[in-house]
């Protein structure tokens, strides 16, 4: 187990209500830098809502979200990249009219230095910038082993490759915090093995916060797990601890059964 040093992300007593329904009820969790942190829980436990609060899409009625020691308020989606947060979404949200390489290049947007005017006039600085971004994107494509698809449109690719494209688009931004919404959903066992290895290899550059149903995968990949049920944290700790927690078992059996 890696020494979990500084806290990267802190969720402090967050409560979210939709009308009369309390989706999150005083949820707190800490994501340490350089770790993989999993959020699990039965359907409707509030996992996606938690993600949306962190991203600032859903306002918290109470509590705060801290990134390092800065409080996040009213983040607009496009500010996330600037804060060092990258996120994948459940539907993947790939750009259907863009090639794989272009999809990834859009993710590198935050590292673009030249201005819009420069791009319009085709100034040399802009062209250099574009080459630099392309190199960076190619490197990520190679790392995820999808470089051979660079010219293809996402619509024609197998699901597994598409998930990697979405991951590449998030990674190319070189985020401090990578938020993955069900990264294993729809993958084969072999692909999940690859994914686990890949995620473990990322912890030297980024922290990962993921929401996942696939229990086995979560247990193997995560350094730390938070369990939600009915909008409340019912367990929190390393995989071994969480696995042994009777409350977790009850929650899963109760709702599953």
């Amino acid at each position, binding site marked *: 187990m890696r020494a979990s040093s500084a806290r990267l992300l802190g969720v402090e007593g967050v409560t979210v209500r939709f009308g009369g329904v309390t989706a999150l009820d005083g949820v707190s969790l800490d994501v340490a830098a350089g770790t993989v942190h999993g959020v699990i829980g039965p359907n409707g436990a509030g996992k*996606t809502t938690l993600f*949306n609060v962190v991203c600032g*899409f859903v306002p918290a009625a109470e509590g705060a979200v801290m990134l390092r020691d800065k409080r996040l308020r009213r983040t607009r989606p496009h500010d996330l990249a600037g804060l060092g947060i990258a996120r994948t*979404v459940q*539907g993947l949200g790939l750009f259907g009219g863009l090639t794989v390489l272009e999809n990834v290049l859009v993710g590198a947007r935050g590292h673009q230095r030249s201005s819009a005017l420069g791009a319009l006039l085709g100034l040399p600085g802009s062209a250099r910038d574009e080459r630099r971004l392309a190199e960076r994107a190619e490197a990520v494509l190679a790392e995820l082993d999808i470089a051979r698809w660079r010219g293809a449109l996402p619509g024609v690719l197998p699901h597994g490759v598409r998930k990697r494209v979405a991951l590449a688009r998030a990674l190319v931004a070189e985020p401090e915090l990578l938020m993955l919404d069900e990264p294993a959903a729809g993958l084969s066992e072999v692909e999940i093995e690859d994914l686990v290895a890949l995620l473990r290899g990322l912890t030297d550059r980024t922290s990962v916060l993921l929401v996942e149903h696939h229990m086995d995968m979560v247990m193997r990949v995560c350094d730390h797990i938070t369990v939600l049920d009915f909008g409340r944290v019912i367990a929190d700790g390393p995989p071994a601890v969480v696995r042994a927690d009777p409350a977790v078992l009850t929650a899963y059996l109760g709702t599953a059964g």
Partner: protein
Amino acid sequence: MPDLLTLAMGGLTNGAVYAALGLALVIIFRATRVVNFAQPALALVCAYLAFTVNRATGGYWLGLLVALVAGAVLGALTERLLIRPLRSRGNELAPVIVTLGLLLVLQAVCGMIWSAEPRSFPYAFDFRGAFSPASVFVVVTVVVVAGAVLLLFGATPLGLRLRAAALRPDVAGLLGVRVGLMLTIGWVLAAVVGALAGVLAAPPFLSPTVLDTVFVYALTAAVIGGLDNPVGTILGGFVLGVALSFVSGLLGPELVTLAALAVLVLVLSLRPHGLFGSSVARRV
């Protein structure tokens, strides 16, 4: 002091026509997410047929009936021949351009058959007086038809299937709803309402371009009211009709189109989906 009552009544009559044509737009938009730019031309063809029947028989009602039947046929043909092939395309622009093309073709056909000269088109009843029987007929007809359409959608099994086919075609199909048929019925319904609007809008003079401005205001009404909300559109039509009549009478007729633009900008900057439109929450 201008005669506000006369202006209001005149505006209400115009607004009823905007509301009816707007309702036709909304029915199709709800069913197929297509704004039917050919709507004024479909209505125009129907109005010209009514005109021809009127001339031949000297009556009004047979002409109206012919127009409504023609509307149904045209609506079905348009959906089957032009819109259905685009359903799987997933391209927002394709139906816009196809319906625009149809608009041009049908308007041209009307010009070829009936020439560009204006033709007199009778009112259903005596048109004289601030509350003339003809005006009352227009307003009442539109309100009744709008009510019937709402009732059809809201309280009948057919309406339920229409809504299901429009909102969740995949699920509706699994549950045994004939989605294709439902979409055709939606177009037929809309085209019949549109034909009615055309016949109501035609008096006193019919010419190939007569419904163009009516369509612009009908679309404005639908956008103001919310394109997927029939009640909002009908209210939008009436409000717009009265407002524009006041603008024309109090400020000058050249400001009417600018006023429509101003109203639209104001409403949409406050409510991007119209006053009563629902903004479908975007999936994250």
